[in-house]
Structures are given as structure tokens and as C-alpha cells.
């Protein structure tokens, strides 16, 4: 059982619980407490994957989250294939299936290895230099080929079936890392009675205190990012270690922790040494070998050579020798020894020393010193300084509310001894710096030779440190090599920026519950079910779902819209206008406030009357429009466009609070307090009369309060169709009954498409279409609405700026295609001479185009330079294969006198 490299005693594994797992389809044994890496090593398996660029055989370098090489895909089922998992972090469970990555057809024989022999042609920046011509070939040939050849695991193709949760937490002290320094800091805080959160990426935390209401212990939890104001992001893995997770349970949990104090006890990472052939399977970090021996009772090999520049490796040598391994050599580069080559195909078999001696071995351990894990400290914008004693960057000083302790602070000499190097021992041949991105010492020297000076540019050109491990084992050696090449001290070169996440975090963790229907809230009106029951086709308008049209059996969209338009023009239609923004403006200064916000005058508006209001931005362009009714001297019912409701209220609040705090006025959104039913058409009054106590003969642009269908109602006589019309506002709970009563009296529902056709026939603008943020009231033919006697309103001053008052601006016009059959497209351009060379001189553009049932021909609205002076001119809309001749006409196509409106 348990493979031939497993020791009979020792370790923190449970030999009483054997586990079976497969790697590339082959079955192996491990036991509870193993990781995938330790179990494979126990079985003598070192070849784990193929490298990113050269497809070289790679093994296990480390024993933790810094692993750059041993990346595998963990497969549970078709939808649960998790690529790029670090084998030393994958906890073994019964039946685990792991697959190696980036090889074809098999791990042992990989065609891509040809890249290794072609490597003289593939130096740093090779694609910038090689794949330049012809230009079209990049997207079609070169990039797809390169992407297929150089890659990581494949992403799953099916939706993620798992559940992810998120929570916020607050604490006095957040301790990241449960090693000796972290436990000491946490114990101290717990003793002091603080609220403590202690997290660690390993499966267990051996805390000398218990979790309580005030003390939270989070194992399998990675602190992946440190953000302003002591906010830390934690990713907690809840079920990945289980053989058969309950799909009802969350797979991962995102914690957003705000801590009064953060203690970074993240330790230090051991550095590889850079020498030719330092990447073969069987070559690993000396500290990793010690971990595999002591924690998992696994011997990494039987005959082991050790290369080191640091005292720590001697401790590993002693422990391995004691456990029965043969230490073939300890090559201490500080004593002038060095290593110049390694050999062996799928596993290291020999090394050559500087002396020329060749030593046979099955394992090589390397130790180049230790690099404090200052990732989070640096993300928090802490300053680092280079410490010559440990040859590494360490925190220069604590930040407010954030300090590093233990090895993270550079305090490891007492435990590990001294020494350490950075840079390359021997940069000849394939001396790898970044194992995951296949960057060699030569690549970095080449980048410097080609003129790169900044470490950030060297990083980008060579891609060192840009893989998913973010150069945990690579960056400091890359810095050393660059410093040598630039003849600068390491502190003069500096480090590249550390970025979140520390290790990759799944999209699911960040998305949490925000998926599918919960991704963005969907707003449905109180009449939504009525529309569904009538078979409405819906469209999205911002977050709202609106009934687009109501097809009857066998009707196309065009048929349905034409019928709905005809009904409104000849009979009566009803329309769900509940999405209209509604703001109640109340107070002694309500009229004064509206006078300042809108171009119109409201002081003079009589109670019970309405006005079409236009709101500008301060730069003079139309922002929004809507009908405003005066319910009382100090109370107005303001309506806005559906999409503009929040924007308009925010702008009103801005001026009310910050410019005119002296005004005594309140603004309240009542969009969802009033459902709106539009009743439009020649029979509107007849249909409504029995349903309300309000006198329906009130004049056009009036408002009255009363009852409708037994509910309190605000009734507006307004029209966005050009017909006799009313808009009844009732509380949402009453809306369904009122709707049903109106339908039962013979009104037919119409949707937003018919609404758009009807308004276009009348030349009514839509904010966002004709008023696209660059149109003034005059451009839209709305100068009549501006209160002439008003000294000021938002946007007034801008209207007299030269650019806005200039002649030749685009103005609203109507267009009729001369053949009376062709329908224009929104956004098409207008020119006077269709035969002129491209680029043509464009005079304007089409903003809205529909088929008008009332005119029995297509119509369009357009913004046209100097348009009002061009009536009856012939212009052209150039298309790909022809030019459509159009005639410029008034934008009011139907009932220009407005007689139907006042009927």
C-alpha cells in the first residue's frame, strides 16, 4: 500500500484511511491527510505536466501555493473540471481524478516538445519579432497556433453548477497565516479579549485557543487581496476536499473583512537556484522536500543531491539522511562549488558540477534563500526595503493598522540560518527563472540588451512573473539577473507591482449569488401578469420588462403593431405606463424650485393644470422631458422618462441640497406608488366615464384627483398619441382591477412599439433618441416651451454660448421616402449628393423610422443641419448598394392642427 516512497511511520497522515485516486487514468493509493502532490511522490511519480512554451517535462517544485509547475485539472464531472490546480494544494479524497495539462497526445510523448528544440527561434518577445507579416495572418493563423501550443488547462465548457456565497465581517485583529508567528500574534489578541479572525490556506489550524463567538478560525482560506482601509478579501474553499460534496452546500465563500488591525504572518517562500537544466522533474526546493518528509512521510528520492546558497538546506540534508535517503552531494555555492548541467529525460538522473564531476542522483534539492511573502503588504501600499542580510525585500515600516510579523518581516535567521543569493548561478543554456511561463535567465539578459531598463518593462517583454503564480518563485531571481545585466544594485532596480489575487480565485466566488435572474434586478409593473395573460411579447427597457406588442393568433409583429395603432386612432387602446418615473415635489418653494430646474414656467401654472416640462443639463443640452401637473399650490406631480427617473431625481437633489439649500421643498420618488394606465383614442372618454367620479370633460393638459374603480386616483388628461387621452394613476394593488374594467368596456391593450409609432406620427421626441445629449431645445423645435421671462434656469446660460447659438445646427425634421415603400433604418446618414466621393459630407442622421399605419407609408424623424430651412428638399440616405431618395418634411405627420387631441 501507499507506494514505495512512503515511510512506515511519521507524518501527519492517517495510514488507517487509505484513499484511491487516479492520475491520467492510472490508479494510485494515498491516504487521508495527503495532497495530490504528496501522494504522487509517495508513488514515485515526479512527471506531472508539460511546460507552457517549450513543453518540457515538469515535476513538483514546491509544497505549497507557490507551485509553478505541477498544475493539474481536477475532474468531478463534465461541468466540474477545474483546471490549473496546484497539486501541492489539492487535498486527496477517495476517487479523486486528476489529469495533466498542456500536452498532445500524452504526457510521456508530447509533440509540442519540438518547441524545445526550436527554442533558439523562440526567445523573449519572439512573437513581436517573428509573426509580423502578412498582417492578416496574425488573427487567422499565428495567434490561434500559438495559443494552442502554449497553454494551461482548458476551461470547462458547461455552466458552473455549484453554489457560491459571500459575507462581510468585521474584527479587531485579522491574522493572516497560522504558522508560529501568526499563532503567537493571534493568541496575544485573543488573550486581550479582542475579536479575532485567523485564516490560513492550509486544511488545518493548530491554534492553542478555541473558536468562540469572538474568535473565528478559517482554514482552507486564502487572503487574496488587501484593499484600502484595511479591507481584506478571503476565499474560503468549503467542499473541494470532499469525496462527494452535497450540491446544496456552497462550494466557496467570499469574505470581505474590515479589520481594525491586520497582522501579516504569511511567512517566506524559498527561492529556486537558476542553473542550466534546473527544471527537470525530480528537482525541487529543499524546504519542500522537508515538508514532504515531515508532514507526509514521503521521501522525494533515494539518492539526493543538494545545491544551496543558504544554511537551511543542511537541516533538510540531515533529516533526509536520518530517514534513510542517501545524500549524494551538498553543493554549497558559497564555498565556490557550482552546478553546470543536469540530465535525465522524464526525471533528473545526473548533475555535472563546476569541477566537471558528474554525480548520479534521482532528486536534486535547491535552496537560494528565502523571500518574505510581502504580497499583501505591498498591495496595501507598504514601502519595502532591500535587506542585504537576507538578500530580500522586507517591509520598511508598519502601516497604520497593518504590520508584518515573523518570516514575512524578514525574521527567519534564527530558525533557518543565513545565506541566500539572487540572480543566476549559471545563465548558460536553459536556466529557468520563471518555470510557469518558461522564462530563462538568457531571456532577461536579452531584454536588457535590447534596451529595456525598467523592471516593469522587462517583466512585460519577457513575461516573467506574469503567469498565474505571479512569479512567487521567479520575481526575485529575475530582479537579480536584471540588476546584474544593468550593473545596478537590486534596490535600484526595485520590484514589480504586486497585484491581487495572491492565488487565482474562481469567478464563482466573486459572482456569488449574482447569476441568472439575480445578476441584475428585473422590474415588473403591477400589470405584468395582465400582459403575460394577453400573450404580450416583452422588451427590456433598462431593468424594466415592458410589453412590446400583443400578438393575436397568427399575427406577425408588424401585423400586431399595425392593428394596435389602428385601434388607438379609430377606437380606444390602453397602455401600461407604470414605468414612467414619478417624483412628487412638495413645499412652499416647489414652484420656484421647478422654475429653476425646468426651462418652463411653473409659478403661473394653475392648480389642476399640466405643462410639458423640459429639463436641460447645465451645459444646455436636453436631459429629460415629461408632463408636470399641479395638484395644489405647494404640490406637483412630476413625470420623467422611464430610463431617466433616477438620473432626474439625482440631479434635482443635487441642486436642492447643494445650490439652493434655502428653498423649502421636498422631493420623493413615487414611481412605484402609482401604476399608470393610459387610455387613448376617440372612445377614451366613453370607456372611462362609468369607472370614475372625475369629470372627464376637463381640458387637455389637466389633472384631477378622485376615484377610479373604487381606488384613489390621479387622472391626467394628456396624450402621447395625438388622440383624446387620459392617464389614470392608481395604487399598484388596485391597478389590475381598473385595467380589467377598462378592457371589459372594449379597450384593446397596445405595447411600446405602437406607442413609438403613434408618437413619431405626431413628431413627439424621445429623450435618448432625438434628444441624444447633444440637442438643445431649439434643435428639437421646443423653443416655445422656454419661459421667456425667467432670469435663470439650469442650462439657460449655456444656450447663449457661441456653439449652441450658432446657425447650421442639426434640427428636428420629418422624412418621407420618395418611393413611399422603403423604410429607413435608425442611425443612417443624410447627404445631398449621393455620388460624391467617400467620406461624404454628412448633413444629418435618422433618429426614428417606422411604418405609419395612419399614412400607410414609412415615416422617419431625423436631425438635419439647418433642417427647418430645408423643407421639401430632396436628400439621400446612402446605403451599401444604393441611395434612398427622401423628402424633408415637417416632423408632425398626423393631425398637425391637433384637433383630435382636443376632441
Amino acid at each position, binding site marked *: 500500500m501507499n507506494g514505495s516512497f512512503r515511510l512506515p511511520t511519521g507524518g501527519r497522515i492517517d495510514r488507517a484511511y487509505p484513499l484511491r485516486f487516479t492520475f491520467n487514468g492510472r490508479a494510485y493509493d494515498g491516504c487521508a491527510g495527503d495532497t495530490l502532490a504528496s501522494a504522487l511522490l509517495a508513488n514515485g511519480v515526479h512527471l506531472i505536466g508539460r511546460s507552457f512554451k517549450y513543453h518540457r517535462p515538469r515535476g513538483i517544485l514546491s509544497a505549497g501555493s507557490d507551485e509553478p509547475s505541477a498544475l493539474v485539472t481536477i475532474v468531478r464531472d463534465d461541468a466540474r473540471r477545474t483546471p490549473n490546480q496546484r497539486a501541492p494544494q489539492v487535498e486527496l479524497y477517495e476517487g479523486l481524478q486528476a489529469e495533466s495539462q498542456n500536452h498532445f497526445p500524452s504526457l510521456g510523448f508530447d509533440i509540442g516538445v519540438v518547441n524545445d528544440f526550436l527554442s533558439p527561434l523562440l526567445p523573449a518577445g519572439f512573437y513581436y519579432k517573428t509573426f509580423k507579416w502578412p498582417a492578416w495572418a496574425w488573427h487567422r493563423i499565428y495567434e490561434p497556433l500559438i495559443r494552442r501550443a502554449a497553454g494551461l488547462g482548458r476551461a470547462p465548457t458547461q455552466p458552473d453548477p455549484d453554489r457560491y456565497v459571500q459575507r462581510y465581517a468585521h474584527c479587531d485583529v485579522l491574522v493572516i497565516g497560522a504558522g508560529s508567528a501568526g499563532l503567537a500574534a493571534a493568541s496575544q489578541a485573543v488573550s486581550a479579549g479582542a475579536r479575532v479572525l485567523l485564516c490560513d490556506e492550509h486544511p488545518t489550524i493548530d491554534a492553542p485557543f478555541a473558536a468562540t463567538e469572538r474568535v473565528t478560525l478559517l482554514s482552507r482560506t486564502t487572503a487574496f487581496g488587501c*484593499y*484600502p*482601509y*484595511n*479591507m481584506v478579501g478571503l476565499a474560503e474553499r468549503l467542499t473541494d476536499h470532499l469525496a462527494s460534496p452535497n450540491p446544496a452546500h456552497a462550494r466557496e465563500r467570499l469574505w*470581505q473583512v*474590515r479589520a481594525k488591525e491586520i497582522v501579516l504572518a504569511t511567512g517566506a517562500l524559498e527561492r529556486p537556484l537558476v542553473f542550466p537544466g534546473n527544471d527537470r522533474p525530480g528537482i525541487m526546493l529543499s524546504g519542500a522536500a522537508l515538508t514532504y518528509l515531515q508532514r507526509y512521510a514521503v521521501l522525494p528520492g533515494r539518492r539526493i543531491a543538494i545545491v544551496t546558497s543558504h544554511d537551511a538546506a543542511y537541516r533538510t540534508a540531515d533529516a533526509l539522511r536520518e530517514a534513510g535517503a542517501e545524500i549524494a552531494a551538498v553543493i554549497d555555492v558559497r564555498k565556490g562549488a557550482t552546478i553546470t548541467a543536469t540530465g535525465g529525460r522524464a526525471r533528473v538522473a545526473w548533475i555535472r558540477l563546476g569541477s566537471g564531476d558528474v554525480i548520479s542522483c534521482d532528486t536534486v534539492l535547491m535552496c537560494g534563500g528565502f523571500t518574505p511573502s510581502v504580497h499583501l503588504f505591498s498591495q496595501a*501600499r507598504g514601502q519595502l526595503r532591500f535587506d542585504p542580510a537576507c538578500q530580500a525585500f522586507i517591509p520598511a515600516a508598519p502601516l497604520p493598522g497593518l504590520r508584518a510579523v515573523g518570516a514575512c518581516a524578514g525574521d527567519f535567521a534564527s530558525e533557518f540560518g543565513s545565506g541566500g543569493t539572487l540572480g543566476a548561478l549559471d545563465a548558460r543554456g536553459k536556466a529557468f527563472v520563471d518555470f510557469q511561463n518558461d522564462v530563462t535567465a538568457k531571456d532577461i539578459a536579452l531584454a536588457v540588451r535590447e534596451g529595456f531598463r525598467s523592471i516593469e518593462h522587462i517583466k512585460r517583454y519577457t513575461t516573467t512573473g506574469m503567469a498565474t503564480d505571479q512569479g512567487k518563485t521567479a520575481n526575485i531571481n529575475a530582479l537579480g539577473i536584471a540588476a546584474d545585466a544593468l550593473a545596478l544594485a537590486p534596490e535600484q532596480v526595485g520590484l514589480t507591482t504586486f497585484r491581487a489575487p495572491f492565488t487565482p480565485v474562481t469567478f464563482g466566488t466573486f459572482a456569488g449569488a449574482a447569476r441568472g435572474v439575480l445578476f441584475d434586478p428585473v422590474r415588473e409593473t403591477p400589470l405584468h401578469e395582465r400582459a403575460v395573460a394577453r400573450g404580450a411579447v416583452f422588451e427590456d427597457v433598462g431593468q424594466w420588462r415592458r410589453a412590446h406588442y400583443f400578438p393575436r393568433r397568427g399575427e406577425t409583429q408588424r401585423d400586431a403593431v399595425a392593428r394596435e395603432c389602428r385601434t388607438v386612432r379609430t377606437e380606444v387602446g390602453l397602455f401600461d405606463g407604470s414605468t414612467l418615473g414619478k417624483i412628487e415635489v412638495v413645499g412652499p418653494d416647489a414652484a420656484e424650485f421647478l422654475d429653476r430646474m425646468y426651462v418652463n414656467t411653473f409659478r403661473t401654472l394653475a392648480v389642476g393644470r399640466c405643462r410639458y416640462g423640459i429639463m436641460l443639463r*447645465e*451645459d444646455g443640452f436636453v436631459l429629460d422631458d415629461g408632463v408636470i401637473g399641479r395638484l395644489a399650490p405647494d404640490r406637483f406631480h412630476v413625470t420623467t422618462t422611464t430610463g431617466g427617473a433616477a438620473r432626474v431625481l*439625482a440631479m434635482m*437633489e*443635487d441642486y436642492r*441640497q*447643494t*445650490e439652493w*439649500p434655502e428653498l423649502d421643498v421636498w422631493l420623493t420618488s413615487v414611481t412605484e406608488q402609482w401604476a399608470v394606465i393610459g387610455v387613448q383614442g376617440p372612445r377614451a372618454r366613453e370607456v372611462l366615464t362609468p369607472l370614475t367620479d372625475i369629470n372627464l370633460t376637463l381640458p387637455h393638459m389637466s389633472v384631477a384627483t378622485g376615484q377610479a374603480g373604487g381606488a384613489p386616483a390621479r387622472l391626467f388628461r394628456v396624450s402621447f398619441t395625438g388622440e383624446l387621452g387620459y392617464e389614470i394613476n392608481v395604487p399598484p394593488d388596485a391597478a389590475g382591477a381598473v385595467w380589467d374594467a377598462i378592457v371589459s368596456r372594449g379597450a384593446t391593450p397596445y405595447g411600446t412599439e405602437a406607442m413609438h409609432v403613434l408618437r413619431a406620427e405626431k413628431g413627439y421626441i424621445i429623450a435618448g433618441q432625438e434628444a441624444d445629449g447633444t440637442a438643445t431645445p431649439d434643435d428639437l423645435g421646443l423653443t416655445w416651451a422656454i419661459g421667456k421671462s425667467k*432670469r*435663470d434656469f439650469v442650462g*439657460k*446660460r*449655456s444656450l*447663449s*454660448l*457661441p456653439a449652441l447659438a450658432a446657425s447650421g445646427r442639426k434640427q428636428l425634421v420629418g422624412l418621407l421616402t420618395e418611393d413611399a415603400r422603403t423604410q429607413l433604418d435608425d442611425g443612417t446618414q443624410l447627404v445631398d449628393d449621393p455620388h460624391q466621393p467617400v467620406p461624404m459630407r454628412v448633413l444629418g442622421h435618422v433618429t426614428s423610422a417606422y411604418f405609419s399605419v395612419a399614412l400607410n407609408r414609412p415615416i422617419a424623424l431625423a436631425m438635419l443641419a439647418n433642417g427647418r430651412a430645408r423643407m421639401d428638399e430632396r436628400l439621400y440616405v446612402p446605403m451599401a448598394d444604393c441611395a434612398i431618395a427622401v423628402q424633408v418634411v415637417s416632423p408632425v405627420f398626423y393631425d398637425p392642427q391637433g384637433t383630435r387631441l382636443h376632441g
Partner: protein
Amino acid sequence: MLLISCPWCGPRPELEFSYGGEAHIVRVADPAAVSDAAWAAFLHARSNPKGIHRERWRHTHGCARFFNAVRDTTTDVISTTYKQGEVPP
């Protein structure tokens, strides 16, 4: 995520707030009296400093009030917040 101290509600996470641009840009009492250039500067010209910036925030998902904050644009540290109408520190 920034921790922003609303002068009315106390410290709250950034996602409760919306940003309102540079503070103390005064809309003159009589816009008709200013030159085109001065008006254009009011509309568009902002100091955009590297360092200390007095800026408006609105506690949109809280008390809904506008207030001012002093933020260092190089560090994102908000040294103080103060109510609308108070003298800037």
C-alpha cells in the same frame, strides 16, 4: 473598497455612496453676468490635482445627503469629511 465617513451616518462602505466630482465649484447667482469663457470654465474646468482633493460624495443608499470629503488622490486616504455648507478644512 473605501470606508467613507458620512458626517451624518458615520463610517460606511464605499458602495453606499456615489461620487459627485470636485467640491466648491460655485454656480454664480447671476449666470447671465459672466463671460462665455468664465461660464465654460465653470462647466468643464476642474483642478484634477495629484494630492489633496476636496470632493463631493452623496450617501445615496443611506441618508441621501451630499457632503464633502478631503481625499488624497495618490493614496485614496480620506483625511476628513464635512457637511454641506461647512467651511472646508
